[in-house]
């Protein structure tokens, strides 16, 4: 599949600073090279191909010009590209996998802006394909079109940026020590659900290998959303117990998402993943935080968006660890899911130490399966292969 670039030195739409800074054209081509792409530096579209644009911001910043720092990506595409897309010589590929936020919120409707812009430009159906870090964007767009009685004009595909592959995963799964601490929970960046999680751990005296609260120095402690607690008490418990660090000491000069601190996993029986997104209802953003226990060979629970475990199962991972109630993953309501997750964690914590120790041995097959399955998966290649397949079908239908 041919990818068109306007020049051999800059990415397409490099006049937009937010696009130029995502990565260089060389880096982008290296990424695309995992699949069967060829590259052309031309503004003449003599052969069918893709016009590739990568954006790293949340949808609110690139789907529409609604505030000074935002921009409408589609309206900034050169007219020759629009004309070529209208005549079905090329297809516009928007890579948007660095972030995985929902396209709609109470105050912004990215689907409406994208859909209207495609119509304003007169682009044919499915001449724009968006690979989104929000893995549910496609079904959300379909639901949006149904709700507003619109024809679907845009194809969405799922894409994973933060797959953990660049963190140098170990050759063998970690060996969990007998009678070690019941869990680890590494919380490096500010998110309100992480703050509430830290509160729950301290208030319920759940002792594990825990990092968190470093952000209290830079972010105010917001009132809790998922638990009914007096705010002053909440704040007192948090500031009395955190910040606490067991892994990355220097969050400025080290890159936390590339670090696998094996000792922590050897000294804890379960990884508690607090994903980047918890409350973006209906969305699905999976990052290296979820992949870390899989690539290290560790059991896990995930405090994330509804259906995260279900998504992992669709990729061949096993998520049922006997003794841990993972049914929280099915709960739509964020508060209920938060509570159910923590009830499950507490139940695990309160199990007899010997029962917990033997559980780890029982889980070994699952852990090894997940460890091997992770090695087999190549998310980036799958993503780009799907783009090629879809685009070949698009052009075939045009013929």
């Amino acid at each position, binding site marked *: 599949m041919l990818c068109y670039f306007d020049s051999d030195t800059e990415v397409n739409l490099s006049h937009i600073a937010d696009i130029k800074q995502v990565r260089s054209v060389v880096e982008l081509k290296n990424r695309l090279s995992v699949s069967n792409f060829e590259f052309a530096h031309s503004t003449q579209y003599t052969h069918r191909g893709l016009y590739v644009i990568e954006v790293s911001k949340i949808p609110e910043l690139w789907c529409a010009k*609604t505030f000074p720092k935002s921009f*409408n990506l589609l309206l900034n595409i*050169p007219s020759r590209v629009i004309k070529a897309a209208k005549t079905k010589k090329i297809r516009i590929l928007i890579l948007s996998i660095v972030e995985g936020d929902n396209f709609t919120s109470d105050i912004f409707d990215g689907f409406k802006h994208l859909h209207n812009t495609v119509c*304003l430009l007169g682009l044919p159906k499915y001449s724009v394909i968006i690979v989104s870090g929000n893995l549910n964007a496609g079904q959300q767009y379909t639901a949006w079109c149904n709700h507003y009685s619109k024809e679907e004009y845009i194809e969405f595909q799922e894409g994973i940026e933060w797959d953990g592959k660049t963190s140098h995963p170990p050759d063998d799964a970690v060996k969990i020590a007998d009678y070690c601490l019941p869990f680890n929970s590494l919380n490096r960046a500010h998110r309100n659900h992480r703050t509430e999680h830290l509160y729950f751990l301290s208030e319920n005296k759940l002792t594990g290998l825990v990092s968190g609260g470093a952000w209290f120095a830079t972010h105010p402690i917001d009132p809790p959303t998922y638990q009914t607690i007096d705010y002053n008490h909440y704040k007192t418990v948090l500031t009395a117990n955190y910040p606490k660090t067991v892994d990355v000491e220097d969050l400025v000069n080290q890159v936390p998402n590339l670090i696998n601190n094996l000792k922590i996993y050897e000294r804890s029986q379960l990884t508690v993943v607090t994903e980047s997104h918890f409350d973006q209802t209906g969305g699905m953003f999976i990052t290296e935080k979820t992949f870390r226990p899989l690539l290290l060979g560790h059991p896990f629970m995930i405090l994330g968006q509804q259906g995260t475990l279900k998504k992992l199962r669709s990729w061949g991972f096993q998520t049922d660890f006997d003794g841990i109630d993972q049914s929280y993953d099915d709960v739509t309501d964020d508060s209920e899911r938060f509570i159910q997750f923590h009830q499950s964690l507490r139940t695990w914590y309160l199990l007899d130490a010997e029962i917990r120790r033997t559980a780890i041995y029982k889980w070994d097959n699952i852990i090894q399966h997940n460890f091997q399955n992770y090695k087999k998966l190549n998310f980036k290649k799958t993503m780009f292969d799907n783009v090629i397949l879809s685009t070949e079908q698009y052009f075939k239908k045009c013929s």
Partner: protein
Amino acid sequence: MANFHLNSQPYLAQLSYNQDTDMILEIGSDQNEGSTEFFNGLAVNWEIPFYTVDVIDEAQHRFTHLDHIIWQVSEGGAVWTKTVLPTLSKQIKVLYLDNYDWSNPGPNADAIIANYSLRNVKWSNLGSQVEHLAQVTNCMPYMSQQSLVICDDTPLVEASGTYTGKCGAVVPYLLVNGYQIVYTGNNGVILQRGL
């Protein structure tokens, strides 16, 4: 940030156009609200010329990548519509009006007064209405029989049922020329005729 122009999309979709004779005209180029790239997108789709007129060339420098736009820097929209527009031999299919500022008294008005004085223009709200009315009277002979006029910063005064703001004088003028109001809200008004 105002992006009133987005409200026009359902009405733009109803228009038919002639690639040989029609044009889109924006008087008052983009000031970071997205109007110029929006109407450029429409013009690219329809493959008709898009003129955007302003007293300064600031937007032109920001949108160098949008090569379909025909930039026009003029002493004013009224001057341009009187002197240049007649030479184009085009019919205006879509007219977007958002130029000479309108403001309530206060710091914003003071800043506008200072800014306009740099161009030796004595700014006033009445001056804004006069300028917009002059632009539209100049445009009227070149308006397509079926066309859309989009007036930003022109709110309805509900108590009196009249319009104020930039195009407060333009709205009745358009009504007597066969236009009908199709949208009012979000600090603006849209009128169309021929549909």
